């Protein structure tokens, strides 16, 4: 069933995003073409400047639109008129959430790839060659200095991006689902849930800072030991820190997943 859900989700997501991706790539081609011609004309300068401005705006719109489409797909498909079909399909709540999450993350990655390709198109030629040379040089230097760890760091960076994208989506899903518990003004309730979570996050952060600043003996001693260990094994500590962060986001994301699942499975009220 997940495979079938993914197929239909991809179709619906692609239908919303494909035109934007085509427009963005088209704008990048136009922005590149206007650079080919030299002219002293003020009008031409304006056209050239405008092409880059519109391209920049298109990049921003593409990224924002990706997030909006992901959120809209979940809300509209599950909790509005479309929900009458979605929620009567013989599919479990977790299959629904999982398929939407997977396509959202994949769509986010696709948008980033399209933006990168568009940026490459606008700088096609000597500039692009220089950019790739610089990236290659940086990677060489990094590899010479820290060896295999440089590859691991890059892989970890990609994993962090994917996990953060999934976490953010699950946060939105959780808030939208919690909003459905309200009798009226459910969209407003979803915003309320998001704001409440933000406040809780800030409070927890402040408590952590206060906790650390109390300079309790055992905590100070722990930090000292960690510092000594980091001097001897800096990469182990760096990788460890990254994976603790990833683990934390995975755990909190899982909480949002199960909150959404519980509400869809046990507290659904499509009115």
């Amino acid at each position, binding site marked *: 069933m997940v495979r079938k859900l993914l*197929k*239909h989700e991809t179709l619906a997501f692609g*239908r919303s995003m494909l035109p934007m991706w085509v427009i963005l790539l088209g704008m990048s081609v136009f922005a590149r073409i206007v650079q080919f011609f030299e002219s002293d004309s003020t009008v031409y300068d304006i056209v050239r400047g405008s092409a880059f401005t519109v391209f920049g705006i298109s990049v921003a719109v593409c990224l924002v639109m990706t997030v909006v489409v992901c959120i809209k797909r979940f809300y509209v498909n599950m909790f509005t*008129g479309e929900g*009458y079909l979605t*929620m009567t399909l013989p599919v479990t709540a977790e299959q629904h959430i999982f398929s939407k999450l997977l396509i959202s993350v994949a769509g986010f990655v696709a948008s980033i790839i399209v933006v990168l390709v568009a940026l490459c198109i606008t700088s096609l030629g000597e500039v692009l060659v220089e950019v790739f040379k610089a990236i290659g040089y940086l990677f060489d230097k990094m590899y010479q200095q820290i060896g295999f760890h440089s590859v691991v760091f890059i892989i970890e960076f990609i994993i962090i991006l994917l996990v953060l994208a999934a976490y953010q989506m699950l946060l939105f899903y959780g808030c939208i689902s919690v909003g459905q518990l309200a*009798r009226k003004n459910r969209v407003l309730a979803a915003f309320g849930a998001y704001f409440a979570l933000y406040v809780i996050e800030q409070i927890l952060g402040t408590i952590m800072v206060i906790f650390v600043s109390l300079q309790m003996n055992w905590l100070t001693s722990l930090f000292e030991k960690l510092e000594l260990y980091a001097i001897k094994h800096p990469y182990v500590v760096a990788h460890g820190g990254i994976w603790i962060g990833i683990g934390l986001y995975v755990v909190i994301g899982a909480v949002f997943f199960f909150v959404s699942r519980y509400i869809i499975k046990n507290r*659904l009220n*499509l009115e």
Partner: protein
Amino acid sequence: MSELLRCEHLTKNYGGVIALNSIDLTVESGKIIGLLGPNGSGKTTLIKIINGLLTPTSGKVFINGNEPGVLTKTQVAYLPDNSYLNNWMTAGQIIKMFSDFYADFRPQLALEMLERLGISPEAKLKNLSKGNKEKVCLILVMSRNALLYVLDEPIAGVDPATRDYVISTIINNYNPEASVIISTHLIADIEQVLDEVIFINQGRVALHKTVDEIREENGKSVDELFREVFKW
């Protein structure tokens, strides 16, 4: 005949408003049942609970012995009272989608019914008239070989010719071992096809009888009895 649907003390509150008030109900297989009541009587609420779209405040509902869930969704074919399909999809794409998800869906039958209506599978729903759109929705539901068909207001807001089409489609395509629950307040149009009726009023079952019982015991048609029971 076996028990297909059972409601036990089923209650639904919307805030302070009681939509269903401790309903006890049993529906057997092989029947066409009219769920009849005025607007706001609780018909749609009951139907949504059967389909797992609403969570009851208290009480339980069982479809073929199971509470609403993935299994019952493979057994119940539901026609909502509002437009619920994606307008950008073509009739053919929706048929493909139903084939993907419902093992009991008969795509060939759906395509044949579309052809008889002169609706191309390539036609987008947004380009169809309201009547044709409703016919497509009905075709999708009746092309399933379900145990229970639940149709919410299938003949509301359509012309008399379309009403006839809807009723004949229901009669000709439902699985005879299944039951069909038709919610409506246009009783005269469907009375001739009903085996049983359930009158629902202010969230309570006001009457549950066979059509023959009504005619014999009350000496009235269902439409006449409805007008008497729900007289203002």
